[in-house]
């Protein structure tokens, strides 16, 4: 039943070679555009390499990593990024879930709501940031609302206390729709008979949510949190468009630091070292979360 004549005639070792051949277009691009740069940046992270001063290219071992730990700016950027991740992830996840629950209840025009909330996530972050720049301006919309409500006006992107929260709020707004759609999909896949049974047993709305919906979509919740955290560590276009790390470095993030080191100060080795530290952080966090995800599933 298993081995047909044709299968037996072709040596089983040749198959993977054919597969390799057919996969070669992808393999080539993988090698040239992924593996090679990856390997190169890994090597660079142990070197001192100023693009302008190629003659001074040299192996410095762990100097770059040591320097990272005494670099105030890097430490500040690390703290800021952590703040960004810790600040945006729960808010985005909870709001997206709440929004999904709301939209799911809407019977008429559900598509309209879904598209409306999803819209920001297909707009380029640079465009969103440019729009928010005028939104946060001294005589922008936000200040008009603040003044109308009797609150003090703020220079949102210039005050050290407000710049980062302002960017975080923008990020939450722009990414919420994407996660809402993910949650909607998860909610749709919860079997309806569970709710019917619960209703028969006299379970209220909250009890249904707590004991049926939440356990059923737990996988998706964890997935959203993981993606959110990974994205949060890599935050860059918002920063680059709105503040470039200012004021006083309060919105400086890790990727922005990598950018500055590489393209402003041309220190490719140092920038690579930073990028690999960032990689290690994200990797470690993702591994921890994968573990959690697995345990919860059992």
């Amino acid at each position, binding site marked *: 039943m*298993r081995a047909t004549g044709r299968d037996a005639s072709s040596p089983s070792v040749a*198959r*993977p070679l054919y*597969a*390799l051949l057919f*996969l070669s277009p992808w*393999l080539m691009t*993988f*090698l040239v555009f992924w*593996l*090679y740069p990856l*390997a*190169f940046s890994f*090597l660079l992270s142990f070197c*001192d*390499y*100023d*693009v*302008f*001063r*190629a*003659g*001074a*290219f*040299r192996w410095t071992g762990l100097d770059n990593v040591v320097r990272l730990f005494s670099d105030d700016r890097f430490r500040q950027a690390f703290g800021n990024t952590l703040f960004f991740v810790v600040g945006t992830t729960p808010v985005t996840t909870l709001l997206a879930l709440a929004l999904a629950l709301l939209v799911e209840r809407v019977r008429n025009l559900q598509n309209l709501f879904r598209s409306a909330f999803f819209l920001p996530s297909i707009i380029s972050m640079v465009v969103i940031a440019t729009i928010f720049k005028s939104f946060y*301006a*001294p*005589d922008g919309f936000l200040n008009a609302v603040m003044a109308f409500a009797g609150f003090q006006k703020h*220079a949102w*992107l*210039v005050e*050290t206390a407000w*710049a980062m929260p302002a960017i975080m709020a923008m990020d939450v707004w722009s990414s919420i729709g994407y996660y809402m759609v993910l949650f909607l999909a998860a909610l749709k896949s919860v079997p309806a008979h569970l709710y019917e049974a619960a209703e028969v047993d006299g379970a209220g709305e909250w009890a249904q949510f707590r004991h049926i919906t939440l356990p059923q979509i737990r996988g998706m919740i964890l997935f959203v949190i993981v993606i959110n955290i990974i994205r949060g560590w890599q935050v860059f276009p918002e920063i680059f468009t709105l*503040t*470039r*790390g*200012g*004021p*006083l470095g309060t919105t400086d993030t890790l990727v922005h630091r990598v950018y500055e080191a590489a*393209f*402003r*100060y*041309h220190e490719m080795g140092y920038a690579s070292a930073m990028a690999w530290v960032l990689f290690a952080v994200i990797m470690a966090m993702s591994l921890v979360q994968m573990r959690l995800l697995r345990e919860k599933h059992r």
Partner: protein
Amino acid sequence: MLREVLRVAGSAGRLMAVMVMLAIFCAPAAAETELVFWNFWDQKFIAPVIARFEAEHPGVKIRSEQLNWGNGLDKIVVALANGKAPDICELGSTWTGKFMSEGVLIDITERVSDLRPRYHLWEPATWEGRIYGMPWLVGTRVLFYNRALFKAAGLDPDIPPRTWDELLIAAKAIHQPDKGIYGFGVNAGEGHILYKKFLPFVWGNGGSILDGQGNFCFDSPATREALEFYRRLMAFGLKEKQDILDDAFKKGRLGLEISGSWNFAKYPKEAPDLDFGTALIPPPGEGRGRSCSFLGGQILVLFKNCRDTQAATEFLRFLTKAENTLPITKEALVSFPTDKAAYDDDFFRKNPKLGVFVKQMETGVHPPVHPLWIELESIINDAVEKVLYGSPVDEVLGAAATAYERVRLQFDDRRKASAPVPSSAGSSIPVAGTIALPVWAMVLLVLIAAGTVANAILLIFIYGEVKKNAA
């Protein structure tokens, strides 16, 4: 019949032979030098000039490619590292220190030195007495003041502030934040602009960033005084980004700001009724110090891989002529020609507000042309920003000196490291390609090979799994 065919074939063959020969003979004659020119301007300004140049210089073609200020420098650096730098390139005048000192530009001293007396802004094109670029455009900033707000505050609109004290008094008189009216525009929240606005106060007060020997002397009493003054001024100011300050001034809600000629391009359409004046940036006191402003501009350079230095220099000389730069100035109003002949034009003579810019330019100071300027710029910017946000002046200046010391040591380190192999850096452009030492190449190859093998193993494994599942 057969003969007919042969005849046709024969003549066709002859024709082809002639064509091939023509092609061979004509090829060298028709081969044009195409020079790639990277610049930051809308092509509508550049294309007509190139067309005129090409008409005058048959055989030379210029291909213009536009960069943007957001990531232009990144692109140039990456291209340089890959050995793909353009033949001709426009550089911001604060970048040239690095490029010139690293020896990636062509020395054009002999080809342009006759133009020296006729042009502005040679300083950022000169390194150790040699000229590595052609000044193209130059820009400065002056004091803008709102005459209507001056009148409303009981100040004489015909007498703009002439000293630091008068500037402070004017800002104080105008400042009414609860009504949305602010005295002086203080730049904040942007990394690359604040120093341009603050340094004029240091320079005007006799201070500087590096002394004659190249030592850091920014932490001098002159800077201290300027910082203290700036902080006092800030009490009557709007602390915001440049475009927001310009906008507030345009809407008549900002009394005074230091800004550039780009504003003139907007006023006629967006704020035709704005009653404003321009004035020189005030010196510290009457008879003390001098009026100073930041001077910056664009320098045209040739990278070492330029394919035709002769033609490229011709193009630089052509492009920078007053008649070719004036149209850009008149329309974009961002910077002015470096060619002094342009200033006889009615455009400057009949507009006193622009005249102030021309006058300010005479006492303008270009920041140090130094290989570490990018680092210095951020050190200075950080220092001023820290003071604006409330840090004590002494602490900030001490930290700036320390930061510079660290950067300088690292730079010296690198220079020493690259010194033993001057031949490799001297003859060709030091690019990434030349660092491909055999060892590195080997390591990389091994890694790539390992990757391929890993992939193959993975594939075989997947294949096995699929087979198992199928079974």
